[in-house]
């Protein structure tokens, strides 16, 4: 069995599962946020009774992050509904906006707060819940109805997916980031190439990556239609987890030679800096193919591109220079926001570097990654051409249906911000 199959078997209480089996499994953590939490709670109350309590308070994590810094009345009401539910049930893991407890983007916050445990099973009401798979666990996104059923019973039915393996060999050149690797994969297999399947990543280049960068690979598994993304854990994973939580965990590994749908091997030295052109994450081009494309805006943020490593990468290019176009910087979480003030590149803090180069700095949240209410920081309103470290560029994703979004690594986004046109980071990285 693969690692995915083994985790599912364990949580189903079975010795063995095979792809295609429909099984009921026990959920270790259910995560929800401000967009899908309130309707999940509505359905939960309708099905389990107005006073019903969550099946296990210790396993419910509520992280408002999508529509936080907005005057939109309906969006604010969603947060109030979550706050009331958390108070009613005295929930230990609710991260309230406007308080020191507020975290920001759920997928990063789950990692930072130690909820991602190797071998465990996490379900979230967000398609990028697959991000947590970077910790060697099964994680996938579901809708409100499935979440409501978990809230009442702790269980979900799942179809065991086949596994597609992606092995990255060699050592990552200094101008590439995890974003380039995953854009390569999505360009190869398409936005539905992984539908119903597990995407498993390994190889030397993957294990050389810091844990946060690995999360960029699993984060975008859904962009290929994948059910989950997963990276078998190593010592780096364990260290990351132990620094953040005392919870016990039991890592799981696939059997050598376990049957897979397919295996693809990549030599990372052969991969070029890449973009996904408008309007689909699989619309891949090398940066050199689209170099010179005129841009209106650059954006560094989101669960996949607003990590500390992403800002260090962007700052290493922006330091001492001025951006030529509107450039937005949005840390995924409040912790990362704090780190901008203490993490330095050649003596300057990231915050100083971004301020001096003329970037606009926002507060930790999803912000313009998904458009959102009209007053959302960084949201497009016209026919802007944007280069962004986010994960999705469908029409209207960043707000305006007329806008065009290129997805790229923080290196490529920063290099492009300086020139105002799509620029290969190799031109500016020394």
């Amino acid at each position, binding site marked *: 069995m693969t690692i995915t199959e083994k985790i599912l078997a364990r949580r189903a209480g079975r010795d063995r599962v095979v792809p295609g089996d*429909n099984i*009921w499994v026990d959920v270790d953590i259910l995560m929800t946020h401000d*967009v*899908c939490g*309130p*309707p999940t709670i*509505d359905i939960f109350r*309708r*099905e*389990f009774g107005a006073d019903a309590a969550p099946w296990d308070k210790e396993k419910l994590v509520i992280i408002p992050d999508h*529509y936080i810094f907005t005057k*939109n009345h*309906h*969006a604010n*009401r*969603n947060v109030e509904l979550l706050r009331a539910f958390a108070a009613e049930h005295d929930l230990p893991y609710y991260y309230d906006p406007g308080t020191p407890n507020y975290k920001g983007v759920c997928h990063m916050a789950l990692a930072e707060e130690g909820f991602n445990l190797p071998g465990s099973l996490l379900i*979230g*009401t*967000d*398609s990028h*819940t697959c991000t947590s798979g970077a910790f060697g666990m099964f994680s996938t*996104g*579901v*809708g*409100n*109805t*499935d979440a409501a*059923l978990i809230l*009442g*019973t702790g*269980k979900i*039915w799942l*179809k065991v997916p086949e596994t597609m393996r992606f092995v990255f060999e060699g050592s990552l050149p200094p101008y590439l980031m995890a974003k380039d690797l995953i854009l390569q994969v999505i360009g190869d297999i398409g*936005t*539905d190439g992984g*539908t*119903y399947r597990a995407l498993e990543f390994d190889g030397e280049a993957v294990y050389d990556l810091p844990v946060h960068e690995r999360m960029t690979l699993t984060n975008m598994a*859904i962009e290929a*239609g994948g*059910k989950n993304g997963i990276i078998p854990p190593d010592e780096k994973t364990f260290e990351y987890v132990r620094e953040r939580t005392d919870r016990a965990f039991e890592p799981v590994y696939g059997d050598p030679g376990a049957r897979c749908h397919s295996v693809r091997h990549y030599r990372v030295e052969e991969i070029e800096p890449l973009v996904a052109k408008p309007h*689909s994450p699989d619309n891949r081009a090398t940066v050199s193919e689209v170099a010179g494309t005129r841009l209106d805006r650059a954006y560094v943020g989101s669960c996949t591109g607003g990590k500390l490593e992403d800002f260090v990468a962007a700052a290493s290019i922006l330091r001492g220079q001025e951006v030529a176009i509107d450039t937005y910087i949005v840390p995924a979480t409040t912790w990362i926001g704090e780190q901008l003030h203490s993490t330095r590149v050649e003596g300057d803090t990231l915050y100083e570097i971004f301020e001096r180069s003329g970037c606009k700095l926002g507060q930790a949240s999803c912000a313009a990654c*998904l*458009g*959102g*209410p*009209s007053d959302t920081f960084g949201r497009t309103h016209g026919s802007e051409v944007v280069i962004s470290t986010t994960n*999705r560029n*469908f*029409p*209207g*994703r960043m*707000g305006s*249906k007329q806008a065009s979004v290129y997805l790229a690594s923080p290196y490529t986004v920063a290099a492009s911000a300086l020139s105002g046109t799509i620029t290969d980071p190799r031109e500016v990285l020394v």
Partner: protein
Amino acid sequence: MKKIISGAAYVVGDAIDTDQIIPAEHLVYSLSDAEERRYYGRYALSGVPQGCQGLPYGDRPFTAPNAFRSEYAIVVGGSNFGCGSSREHAPFALQEAGCAAVVAESYARIFYRNAVDGGFIVPFESIERLLERVRTGDLLEIDTSLGKLSNRTTGEEFLLKPLGDVADILKAGNVFEFARQAGFMPA
């Protein structure tokens, strides 16, 4: 699930993602408040770009401006229908607009699951590509027990793929009824 689902077709292209089915800015409305939920019907498929709205014409909104219900009951799409976010608001919006079924070549996993588990719409998979065989406004009839789609306007008939594993959930009505039958939830 009804034996016969019939009504006018609304035809869209490939990779209709959830931002096109219900743009993110509209996700703020309550799904349970009777007054507010109607807005999901109003904005269903409103993210489909001009030129692609109601093929082959391209300029026919799914829900008429200021209306809450659509005149179309069956959406016909290409491959990877519903890709993108996990928002259950997507199949819900289609249902709220009055749509009963989608017939597409293939689906993104979460959309498909949401449609079935919530009992919002029936997601049928077509065997052949229908985009060029059905025009927006054609009168369609789906016989759910035979798995057959008839285009009453052109007289053509098409077979649909069997619903397979999810048929039991669709028959139960939604995943809660299914879970009750499986004994995980009190009846």
